[in-house]
């Protein structure tokens, strides 16, 4: 073993890396629990990649084959039901973990200088995750996914000037058809994973270079006792323990609720029929519900523009402000809290929670 290590070290100089990693530490304090949510998101992403590859072995995109292949996967392929169910559960939990990770970073001010790039890459990763969810939702080509995608892509059409063009690019034509599956499939399994890999590599690189953010209190009070734990093996072992628990949770959810539960569900149902009347309730995935509900509640016209367009503009401005949040507080002295940002953060959380609840209760 030692000889093998020496052999590799001689060629790759991994001793330097090992030396660097052995000195890596993680701040240990009462808020350390939030550090694990990034790792949880990464775990779910790894599960997504692995189960996604397995699903790819049988999935066949196309209006005549997508639904049939998913039905084949869940009914005929050995453990196919398990793979699809874990893929779906893991997708939802990944978004949930990413949201918690992002808000924990926001409220602990961990996004502040010098971690602006980490924050931006993280927010973009969440956006990409949601794009994964949106593009994956259509792939089974069932009734619900078809109509939800028609509504979702239709919203892009509300944008001025580029709206119709954007909608046609997404749909591959005027309507949601087999061409749309082809595009969504391409994005889901090629474009998005490629972009995601780049951004996650950057995100992890930034974290490794900058280390975990320390609590604000440590910067304010230099006398405060600072505790650290070694990344290797202490933090990594804890992370592995959490991953094991998450794996078991995924297995339990997949076995007991293979088609999801409550608002988080993905029954295969009937095949999409463009000529059939839309189902009574068309709703997006839960993480799009706040935006969907907001657009639904807006009046037809606000001032001189259409209500839907107004909503999209407001959401875009809020999203942009969220993305550049670290730059908005860049001039704050080190260790000071931005109360305006805290208020903004809680306003965003309250808005998302209230709109999501309304979305499910006002159906």
């Amino acid at each position: 073993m030692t000889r093998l290590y020496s052999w590799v070290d001689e060629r790759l100089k991994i001793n330097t890396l090992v030396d660097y990693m052995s000195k890596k530490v993680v701040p240990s304090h009462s808020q350390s629990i939030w550090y694990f949510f990034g790792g949880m998101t990464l775990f779910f992403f790894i599960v997504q990649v692995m189960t996604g590859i397995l699903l790819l072995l049988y999935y066949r995109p196309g209006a005549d084959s997508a639904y049939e292949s998913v039905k084949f996967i869940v009914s005929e392929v050995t453990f196919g039901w398990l793979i699809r169910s874990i893929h779906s559960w893991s997708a939802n939990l990944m978004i949930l973990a990413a949201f918690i990770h992002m808000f924990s970073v926001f409220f602990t001010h961990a996004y502040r200088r010098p971690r602006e790039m980490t924050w931006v890459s993280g927010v973009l990763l969440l956006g990409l995750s949601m794009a994964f969810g949106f593009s994956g939702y259509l792939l089974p080509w069932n009734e619900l996914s078809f109509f939800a995608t028609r509504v979702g892509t239709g919203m892009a059409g509300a944008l001025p000037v580029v709206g119709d063009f954007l909608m046609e690019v997404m749909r591959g034509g005027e309507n949601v058809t087999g061409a749309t599956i082809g595009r969504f499939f391409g994005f889901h399994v090629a474009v998005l994973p490629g972009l995601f890999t780049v951004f996650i590599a950057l995100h992890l690189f930034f974290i490794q270079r900058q280390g975990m953010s320390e609590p604000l209190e440590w910067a304010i009070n230099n006398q405060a006792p600072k505790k650290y734990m070694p990344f290797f093996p202490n933090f990594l072992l804890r992370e592995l323990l959490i991953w094991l628990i998450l794996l078991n949770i995924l297995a339990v959810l997949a076995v007991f609720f293979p088609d999801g539960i409550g608002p988080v569900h993905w029954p295969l149902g009937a095949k999409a029929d463009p000529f059939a009347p839309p189902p009574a309730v068309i709703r997006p995935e839960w993480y799009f519900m706040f935006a969907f509900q907001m657009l639904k509640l807006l009046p037809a016209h606000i001032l001189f523009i259409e209500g839907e367009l107004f909503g999209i503009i407001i959401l875009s401005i809020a999203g942009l402000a969220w993305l550049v949040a670290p730059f908005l507080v860049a001039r704050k002295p080190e260790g000071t809290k931005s109360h305006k940002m805290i208020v903004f953060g809680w306003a965003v959380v309250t808005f998302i929670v209230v709109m999501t609840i309304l979305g499910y209760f006002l159906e």
Partner: protein
Amino acid sequence: MGGRDIYRCNDNSRLFSGVSRMIFMTNRIKRTLVLFGTLVLVCFFPGLSLADNCLGCHSGWEDDERAPSALFPTDIHAQAGLGCSDCHGGNPELDDMDDVRAGKGYRGVPKPKEIPAFCATCHSDPNYMIKHNPPLATDQFDKYKTSVHGKQLLGKGDIKAANCVSCHSVHDIASPQLPASTVYALNIPGTCAKCHSDAAYMAGYGIPTDQYDDYAKSVHGHALLDKKDIGAPACNDCHGNHGATPPGVTSISAVCGMCHTLISEEFSKSPHKKAFDEMGYPECEGCHSNHLVLEPQLFWVGTSDSSLCVNCHSADDGTIALATAEKMHSSLQELYDAYDRAEEKTDEGDVKGMMVTDQRFALKEVSQAIIKTRTIIHSFDAEAVAKTTAPGMQAAEKVYEASVAKIDEYYFRRYGLGIATLIITFLAVMLFLKIKSVEK
């Protein structure tokens, strides 16, 4: 005041008094009202002629909502542009009713016996009907004359017998394709029942009055009246409409066979056909009744006391009838049992949350086999029945096995999860201990 005087609008001194007299004081006021009434009718019912004064006058003194003037604007004839005078004759451009009635071609109100010929003036004239409703047949009156209703009315002068308006109503006639029509498919049983379920009205004709009640309980009535399946047979589908005649013993199988073609063919090839013909038994009705056609039951075929076979056959009648009946009963019973068994397992899999859509679909194949067997039973050939049930039995067995496999998989998933949880828990405990050990 003579009966005909009530038709006068302008005879103020005899007909009206008090407020009425004030309203209809002068011809000028009368003409103004007539003009206004006509304008209203023309505006709202453009099919009516501009020069038709009938409704203008009649609507002035007919305050009954069932009066002809109130009903007519909704009538199919009014919508086709016909006015009162097109049926009743007279000159509708005249103001005075006496003048109208004195006009050329005035026919007034037909007596019941005159009604069929009255309607046939147009409806039996192909040259006229082609202008208004080309696809409509023009042989209704000829058929009516051959019907029991027609014979009673035209032959015996029995005015209680149904004429055109008895079924189609009058002045508010709607197309039979419209739900508002008295002869719309869903309404036909009720229309016929108006007379045929009225024991007092039907007294003296020597026919029962429970047909509607029986029909409502039958498979046909259930489909039509409860499920609103307008493809299900109503009275006229078996009895005819304008040529309404009860199917006799010799024609009943032909009537049923119009829809139940395969059953009719099987029965015609069976030994029963000859026997029934010789004995003068009605074919289908012998087992299925006439109006009370109930859902066929398994026990109808067989040798139990409640079976229909023992009504005619006995063990010592020198035929193989009861042995055949027993075999057919067994074959069908096995198929029913196989279906129930497969469906029960499918339901169990469904309740457990397993995907059983394929099994549900395959069950339809078994249902088809049951329907086919119930058809073949009319051949009264035990071998043919057994042969027909065989594919259904195989299909049911496949569904059963597939459903059992689904249920087995359900338990396999849970056992697998249990084992996986044990392994993961063990690893988690080991990791936990390792962390404790490292941090010590």
